[in-house]
Structure formats: C-alpha cells, structure tokens
C-alpha cells in the first residue's frame, strides 16, 4: 500500500524536529530513511505508525487518510530496535498478540502463527520464552509479530543495530527476502548506509528533519545532490579537495587534473572536488603527489591515505598485492570523469 506523507511537521515543545517533510513510498516498495543520529528518522517512523501525533500535514495509506487515527487503527507492523518482545509470553503468544487483541478465534490464530513462523524460519522456537532466544532469533520473532496480521505497511526502526556483524549480514538478506515474498510496503530506518543501499529500493537521505535526496541507491551514490549526500554515502568515504580552476585544469594543493567534459564551462573559479577512493590511484596516471600516511589492509583491498603537500588527505582504495608502504612518496592520478564538483556552500555543480 502506498504511503504518502505531505507537509509533515513535528515539534516537541519549542523544538521543531521535522519541518514540512514530503515523502511518498510506492506500493510494495522498500525505502530506507537514512541519516545521521538525531535527524528525525525515528520521529518520522513513529509518526507513521501513530505513536507520535503530527503537528501539521497529512498521512495517507493508499486512499485512506490516517493522519488522526490512533496507532491501534492504522494496521501497521513495527519492528523496534530492541525488538520489544513481551518477556512474559511465549514466542507463540508474542506472535499471536496482534491477532488476540482483535479477538480472532483460536484456530485461525494458530494457523496464522504457524504460517508466519514458517516464513521467518522459526517454527521450532514457538514454545520458548524471548529470554531463551538469540538476538537474531528475537529479530525474526519481532518480524513475525509485525507481519502476522498482514499490515498495510511494515516499519523497521534500526532492526539490525543490536546484532553482531555476521548476523547482521544474514538478517539483511532475510528481511529483504521476507519483504519481497510478502510484497509489503516497508520503511527501514537506519544510519548504516550499507544497510540502506543493500536492502532498499530507494533511499531517503535525511538531515536536520528534512529529506535531502530521495533516489535509488546507485543513482544517489553516483549523483549525490550535494556535498552532504556525497559524504554520507560510500565507505570508505569520499575525499573533498579545495581546487581552483585555471583554464581547463583544476589546480589542487599538489598537482593538477583536467576538467572533465561535462563540467567544462560550468565551474566557478573556486570550488570543492569530491574524489571517491576508487577513482584515485596509479591506474589513473599521475599528477597528484603526496605521501602515504595511512595503510589499512582489508584482505581483498587495501586502503591508503595520501596526504598532499598542503595537508589535504585523499583516500584511495586499491586491490591488494601492491607494494606501496607507509611513508612512500607517490604521484597518482584521478579519474576526471568521475570527479564530483561542489560550490563553496556545498551544492552540486
């Protein structure tokens, strides 16, 4: 079911946390609310499920205006960061709870619980108590409970934050699998860009209570709307370098690169260049000279920090098996076609 937030405003006392936010999630789509801590992701999510009331704007599920409905009547499923399982109930009762409060008959409840347990792969855990489950299993239970009454929307608030790295990988694909199998419209709140990029159809990147950019993950990565977006996406992150334009070259602190064709003629004399680590290295020729001040071995790849003469650091990621060492003086090139240019106030050029 399509979710449509229009001019959504949320204030806590004097503090305006969300200011006229607009967001549309298409039916069956999974979208990520991504942003730094405190940007209002949870607030947005809690408003969609009705825990918080809106101070302005409207919310529609499909054609239904749910702006003023209490959360009980919205038919949303929510997975909380700490799972919020009911500790005194068995797993079966936990999952059955949304059906039980709707007074469905016992046989139907049992059948639906079994179905959903099958879907999230926990049929053998139903008689246990939450305390007897691992984090990943609790996560699956929370998902099952959120999905059991076939909600119109599924909301996930940092569902993977409490899991260890391996489980996080596993649950990432599991949640996506379940979302695709059920075809449910889902919103995932996260501050982990990898989670957002790997699990969702589109990403809404938030900052200070506003959506800065809403796009497909690869599009957002390749074409960030501004410096903030460019800096937020990508790991290792993009490097920003002050540059001035002299003729058809960018002059950096220690070197020069050519202005690419698509930027030619559109750039001001002073600007910032964004260089992603995969576009800086010896394979792109030479011209930008500096010293390797940091090396991080990641197995398949190595990560290098190259410090230019004026102190600017440009990161580079290279296949492993190369002979660069800490302290080496290098002169590497930059893939000019993939350089991002930003004006002094951070706008994309």
């Amino acid at each position, binding site marked *: 079911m399509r979710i449509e937030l229009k001019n959504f405003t949320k204030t806590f006392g004097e503090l305006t946390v969300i200011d006229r936010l607009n967001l549309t999630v298409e039916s069956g789509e999974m979208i990520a609310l991504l942003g730094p801590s405190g940007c209002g992701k949870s607030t947005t999510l*809690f408003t969609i*499920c*009705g*825990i918080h009331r809106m101070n302005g704007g409207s919310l529609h599920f499909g054609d239904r205006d749910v702006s003023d409905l*209490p*959360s*009980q009547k*919205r*038919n*949303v*499923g*929510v997975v*909380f*960061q*700490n799972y*919020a*399982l*009911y*500790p*005194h*109930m068995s797993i079966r009762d936990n999952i059955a*709870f*949304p059906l*039980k*409060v*709707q007074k469905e008959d016992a046989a139907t409840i049992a059948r639906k619980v079994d179905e959903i347990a099958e879907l999230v792969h926990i049929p053998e855990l139903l008689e246990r*108590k*939450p*305390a007897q489950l691992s984090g990943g299993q609790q996560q699956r239970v929370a998902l099952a*409970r959120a999905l059991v*009454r076939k909600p119109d929307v599924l909301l996930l608030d940092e569902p993977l934050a409490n899991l260890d790295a391996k489980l996080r990988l596993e649950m990432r694909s599991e949640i996506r699998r379940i979302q695709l199998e059920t075809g449910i419209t889902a919103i995932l709140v996260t501050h982990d860009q990898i989670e957002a990029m790997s699990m969702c159809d589109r990403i809404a990147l938030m900052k200070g209570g506003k959506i800065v950019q809403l796009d497909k993950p690869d599009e957002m990565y390749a074409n960030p709307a501004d410096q903030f977006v460019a800096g937020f996406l990508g790991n290792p992150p993009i490097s920003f370098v002050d540059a001035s334009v002299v003729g058809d070259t960018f002059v950096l602190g220690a070197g020069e690169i050519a202005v690419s064709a698509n930027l030619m003629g559109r750039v001001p004399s002073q600007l910032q260049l964004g260089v992603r680590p995969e576009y800086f290295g010896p394979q792109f020729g030479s011209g930008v000279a500096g010293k390797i001040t940091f090396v991080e071995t990641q197995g398949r790849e190595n990560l290098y920090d190259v410090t230019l003469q004026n102190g600017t650091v440009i990161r580079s990621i290279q296949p492993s098996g190369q002979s660069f060492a800490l302290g080496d003086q290098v002169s590497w090139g930059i893939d000019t076609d993939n350089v991002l240019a930003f004006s002094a106030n951070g706008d994309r050029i």
Partner: protein
Amino acid sequence: MNRRTALGFGFLAPALLVVILFFLAPVVLTVFFAFTNMSTSTGIRGGEYLLNQSILRSIPEDAISTETRNTLENAGYQVNDQGLAKLAETVSPATADELRSLHGGARFDSRRDMERALKDLRENRIRSTRDRKAAADLFNTSILNTRYNTEDAFRAALAGTNVPVGDHDALTSFAYTGWSWTTENMKLLFSLDSSYRYAANTALYVALTLAFNVGFGLFLAISTFYLPPVLASTFRTIWFLPRILPPVLYVLMWKWFTWDTGFLATMTGYLGIAPRNWMLDTATNAWVFVVLINGCVGASLGMILFSSAIKAIPTSMLYASEVDGASRWQQVRYIILPQLRWPILFTTSYQTLSLLTSFEYILLSTEGGPGRATEVWALAAYHTALSNYGGNLQYGLGAAYALILVVIGIIASLLYLRFFNFKELVSKPRIEQ
C-alpha cells in the same frame, strides 16, 4: 576461623547485635511470658507467700483436708511463752507476768475473746484500745494474713501450726502469690469464644485491607501512569501523605471527618439524617473506616512500588502493544499487569505479615469498638497485656496471644520464602529483555 571470616563477623557485629536485641530477644521473651501466669498481681519478679480467707476459699475442695481448713481458720489465740515474751518486751515484764498468772496457757477462738482476756488485767491495765489490739495480736497463732518473703519462712510458720504435714506442700503452692510456669494461657486461649471472634476479625481485617491496598495501589499506579507527568507526580505526592503523616494526626483527621459534629455528619445532616458518629455507629461502619484508614496508608506504598515497576517496562514494549492493536485496557491486562506479578506478590506477602501484627490505626480510631467488633488479634494482645480496663494487666495471657502471631508470622515467612523462591527473585532481573 580465618581472618577473612573474622573480618566479616566484625563488620556484621553491629547488625547481629541489633538482630539479637530487637528481633530475637522479643521473640524469646514472648515465648517465655506466654508460659507464665504473670499479671499485675503476681508482678514479674517472683512473689511472697500469703494465706488469707479468700485464698483459702479459692483452694479446691479436695486439695486440702477439712481439718486443715479448720485448723487454719480457727487457730485463734493462745497465751503462750512466745507471746508473753513479746508482751514483756513491748509493754512491760510486769504486764506479762500478770497475764501469765491470770490466763497462762489459755486458748481463745477470736481476737475479741483475747482482748477481753487482756481487759482482765488489774495492776497493769492496757488503757488504749489500740494498744490492746496490738497486744492481742502478739498471741495470734494463725498464719493467715501474714506475708512471708521466702518459702522457708512460710514452711517454718506452717510447722508451728497443727496443720497436718501432708497438706504443707499444697498450702505452700497455693500461698505463693508470685508468677509461675503454666500452660493455662494456651488452654484458655483456645477455649475462649472471644479468641475465635478475634481470629475471624483479624482474617477479615487482613483480607479486606489487603484487597484495598493492592487493588487501589494498582489502580493509582496505572492511572497515574497514563496521566501527564506533572499531574501524575502531584497525585502521587498527595496519595503518599497518609504514609508520612504521624498516625495520631492522620487518624485524628479521620475522627474529625466522622465525628457526630464532624464533616460527614454535617453534610449528611443537610440530607436530614440525624447526626451520629459515623465511625462507631455500627460494626459495619467501623469496619469500613478501619479498612479505609489502613488501606489508604498501605495503598500509597503499593502505588509507589507498582509505579516504579511500570516505569521499568521499556516504552518500546508499550508502543509495540499499541501498534499491535491493543486498546488501553488490553495493554493493562496483557502487558502491564503480567509484568507487575512480582511486585504484586511481594506487596501482598509483605503486607499480609505487617497487617497481621499491626493494630495502631485500629487502636487510635475505633479501639476495637463498637463493642469488640473491630478487635483484632494483635489489639487483643495489647489490650490483655498492656491496657486492660479491669486494671489487672495479664502479661502472660497477652504474651500467649502474641506468641500465636509470632508462630503464624514465622510459618508464613517460611512459606513465602519457599513459594517465591526469593533467591531466584533477587538474582534474576524480572523484566527480561
């Protein structure tokens, strides 16, 4: 004992001392008193030996022979050497000599006869009646009405009479006025109808007050939980007042409220109801107020305990139940109440014990009245042992009452310990994540 245990005991010593002094000692003393017949008349130190008419009369028929009885009662007066020696000493040897010559060896049944004999003196008249009476006493051979400080003195006096030796032991025990060991208290307790009445009253009192405490405490905790924070804490403070108010003041307010010229009577007076003391008017009224007075105090404790337990429930769990579709009532019923299970059980058990032994609010409000309608066991113990209208405080019987409570309390505590498995209760957090 190694140094570490010694150190441990060293640190514990003050606590142990307090436990022994204020917990163990009272229990031991209660047991001790419960098996004595101590009262105001026996004193608590041990007593003298005394026989008098009323004690003689209280001795059962077959305990001593009729001959003994007669001998004791009619021992009368005899002009013997012993008495004459005393007379010589207190009045004059001449008087003694004259009396010897007149009545030496004579016996008189009553003091009057003895006095008459003294009037026979011619040369050494004893003029004042008082002196004559005093002189007559010197010849008294009866041991009635004389206090003897030790058993030996009493037995020696008995030996000086014609009482058959076989009755000496029985008489000695009846003559003892101090306390003695007895199981009579327990027998009496179980034979008195009033005991069963008090037991029933206690059960009623504990059950009703407990229900009110827990029920109302829960209601307050849950309802204030859903109020805005400022309003909630104001409410909680108000409801906590009964607990921090001195009991005398608190009960006095209830008395003002229910007096026949008090608030309630005045208000109902407008409805044309004759003014009355609403608290002591009928037994039912008294019970209502006893439960309310105690309940409001207890409910505030329950409220605090339950409130903090509710606050310990993670907010996200409450949010989860709301988006799961649970109404307020379902949220209370399925999420909050089950998680209050331990606090509720704890409060219930704790308050059962404290209610069993508490009587101060009843004492201050109804004093067990009207009649004995609200007299609970602990209050009966207090009344018997420490505040008896008759004036004879029966420490022994009172302690017997108290002992029953001690026994019930210990049994209940042990049961609770088993039932709740307190070890588990304290070692595991009750709200699991």
